[in-house]
């Protein structure tokens, strides 16, 4: 066994230069090569108490898979990861490792933690590139489960159940499987070929995917149960975008981040001559500070915007996006207008000529400066307006990325399904809802959160469904 690598810093992730990637939808982070992966793996001390594992929502056996990497047994490493995670190549790319596994890494006490996410990605990519072994369906156990939504929680739940011999059908409202992995997270952060590969793996496990079926409309949860499904898992996602309720949100050029990203990613508006239109170029303000806001800002830049602002009412400290995305966005030239809050979106209005085609398009956004006041109930310092500090940014497009409210379609058509005051489905620790045999997880329960927490919920529910149906 080689000696541990005691370097205080992670092996840097090779990335495309900011100048090139600001105009390209190709993946930004290029991934470790074999030698770098080996060198990084040697930074892991293989702690017996494995603090990193407790930081992972799906409890990947991290030191064990890294030990396999040290032995250059990459397929062995993949097998260990895939025991816990249905989507390793996705998680290695989009998990906020800095607040999860890596936050618990002993190496992080003095220096940087082990690059666990980068190693996970390396192992998953190695497998996808080299392994010819497709998973095969398991011996059926005679039980059927319906999964609502093919996003991260649904795919995880489907995968775990299929591996136990359940007959699993996933119902997807859109025309393509993947949920937010397809319509939301952009190509340059998560190539769609990776998602497709993960979905194909599920198909070879025997999972059926029915696209164009909207549960709550085309079929209801109760009908699925009547049709003989032994359990239903609802992973229908975050739902409708929120708006601020300020003047001008109905102007042309105002998008929700969901719409902007869906046009760009799912409907491929970034390609030449797309069939689905999108406003490109000009100056863009993205309101919000989450991962979705970063994705929207960076898409806008790649679609040809000359200037992109992130407008966020708190400071850099509180910005909720994944650190790497914030750094990448800043490197690409996106300007952060922090401690700023929009008051009004201003549109073009030619009073002389009501048929002027420019009428009704956004020209600017008026904001007010904020300062941080007393902490709120969650301990975050509350932003407070500074009087008379208004300023105006000239922009052509405004993208609202300030969260979502749950989709009403399932709640309103499912008898006996209880939701909380924010509209999220109420579940117990097993993911079981107020309705027998109906489970839920992911954003439909928590409101907008991360891919990995949704996967964790899908996993928990799969375990509970298996326990309840196979006892």
């Amino acid at each position, binding site marked *: 066994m080689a000696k541990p690598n005691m370097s205080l810093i992670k092996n840097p992730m090779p990335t495309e230069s900011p100048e090139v990637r600001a105009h390209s939808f190709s993946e930004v982070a290029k991934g470790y090569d074999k030698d770098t992966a080996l060198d990084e793996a040697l930074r892991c001390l293989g702690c017996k108490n494995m603090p990193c594992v407790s930081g992972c929502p799906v409890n990947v056996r991290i030191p064990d898979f890294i030990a396999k990497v040290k032995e250059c047994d990459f397929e062995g490493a993949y097998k260990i990861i895939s025991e816990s995670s249905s989507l390793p190549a996705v998680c290695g790319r989009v998990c906020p490792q800095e607040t999860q596994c890596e936050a618990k890494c002993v190496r992080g006490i003095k220096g940087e933690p082990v690059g666990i996410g980068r190693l996970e990605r390396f192992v998953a990519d190695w497998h996808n590139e080299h392994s010819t072994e497709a998973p095969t369906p398991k011996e059926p156990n005679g039980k059927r489960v319906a999964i609502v939504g093919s996003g991260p929680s649904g795919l995880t739940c489907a995968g775990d159940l299929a591996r136990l011999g359940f007959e699993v059908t996933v119902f997807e*409202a*859109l*025309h393509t499987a993947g949920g937010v992995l397809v*319509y939301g997270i952009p190509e340059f952060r998560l190539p769609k070929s990776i998602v497709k590969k993960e979905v194909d793996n599920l198909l070879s496990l025997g999972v059926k995917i029915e*696209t*164009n*079926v*909207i549960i709550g*409309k*085309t*079929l209801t949860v109760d009908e699925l149960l009547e049709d003989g499904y032994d359990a239903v898992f609802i992973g229908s*996602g975050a*739902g*409708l*975008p929120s*708006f601020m*309720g300020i003047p001008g*949100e*109905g*102007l*042309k*050029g105002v*998008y*929700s981040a*969901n*719409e902007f990203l*869906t*046009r760009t990613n*799912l*409907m*491929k508006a970034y390609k030449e001559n797309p*069939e*689905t*239109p999108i*406003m490109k170029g000009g100056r863009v303000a993205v309101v919000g500070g989450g991962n979705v806001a970063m994705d929207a800002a960076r898409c806008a830049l790649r679609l040809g915007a000359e200037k992109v602002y992130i407008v966020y009412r708190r400071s850099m400290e509180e910005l909720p996006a994944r650190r790497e995305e914030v750094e990448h966005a800043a490197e690409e030239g996106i300007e952060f207008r922090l401690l700023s809050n929009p008051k009004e979106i201003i549109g073009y209005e030619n009073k002389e000529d009501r048929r002027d*085609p420019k*009428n*009704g398009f956004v020209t600017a956004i008026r904001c007010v400066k904020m300062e941080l006041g007393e902490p709120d109930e969650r301990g975050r310092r509350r932003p407070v307006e500074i009087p008379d500090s208004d300023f105006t940014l000239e922009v052509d497009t405004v993208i609202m990325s300030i969260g979502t409210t749950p*989709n*009403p*379609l399932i709640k309103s058509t499912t008898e006996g399904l209880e939701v909380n005051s924010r509209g999220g489905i109420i579940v117990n620790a097993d993911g079981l809802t107020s309705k027998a045999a109906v489970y839920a997880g992911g954003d439909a329960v928590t409101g907008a959160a991360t891919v990995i927490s949704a996967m964790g919920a899908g996993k928990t529910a799969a375990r509970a469904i298996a326990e309840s149906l196979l006892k």
Partner: protein
Amino acid sequence: MYRIVTKKELNPTVTMMEIEAPLVARKAEAGQFIILRVDSEGERIPLTVAGYDRVRGTVKIIFQIVGKTTASLNRLSAGEYIEDFAGPLGVPTELCGLNDVCIVGGGVGCAIALPIAEKLHRMGARVTSVIGFRSRDLVILEDEFRAVSDELHIVTDDGSYGREGNVCLPLREMFSEGRKFDKVITIGPLVMMKFVVAETRPTGIPCDVSMNPIMIDGTGMCGGCRLTLNVDGKRVTKFACVDGPDFNGYEVDFDEAMSRGTMYRDFERHAYEEHCNLFKKQS
């Protein structure tokens, strides 16, 4: 893939198709809509359900050829397939308890108004239909409307068929004669619905409109179809895909909706022209 069972041209710019989609046909109700994609690269467009046959498992759509996507759809024939067809979406039109209703349809909007008129007729309600078109050659579904209406008014902008004028003309006359209805339901171009609402407002008769904004997913995810309602002096954002497509006409901000509807006008015109040129070259 979803098979086109029948296709019929209703006039030079409007086509009817029956699509085989048993799950959608089983649930579809008047006032709901579907989302379709013609091919794997196509955009998603919403079209209102113009009829359904639960036994044959088909859903009827009627569309006007206005752009590239509808032109591509219109190039397909019976027996061919479209890529995606999802629904039924939106809330069905609320008709419970209505005994005397005035249906006001304009242009291709008449295709959406017809199933509502049919349903009201089946329910035993008195149906007064006012249907308007630009000119004689664009008139559609006249016989179908006649079959379910107790009273039918046809108008054309140029007077080439029926009476000359827009749909507000017969409406105004009926109101001035003191005609009362339980409800006025109007479906057509935004500007027409805006005027029907304005015409009806002084009478105090409830007036519902069917909104057809730009949509992408149609399932309550993207927010592109949002519109603003003025409810008791407050401005409220609603989503046509899950809250509509029917709304109380007195509350809808039509000016904003009309403005938003033109957001991609240049893009659409360009795409349509390119599409037409392409096929001119081929043929």
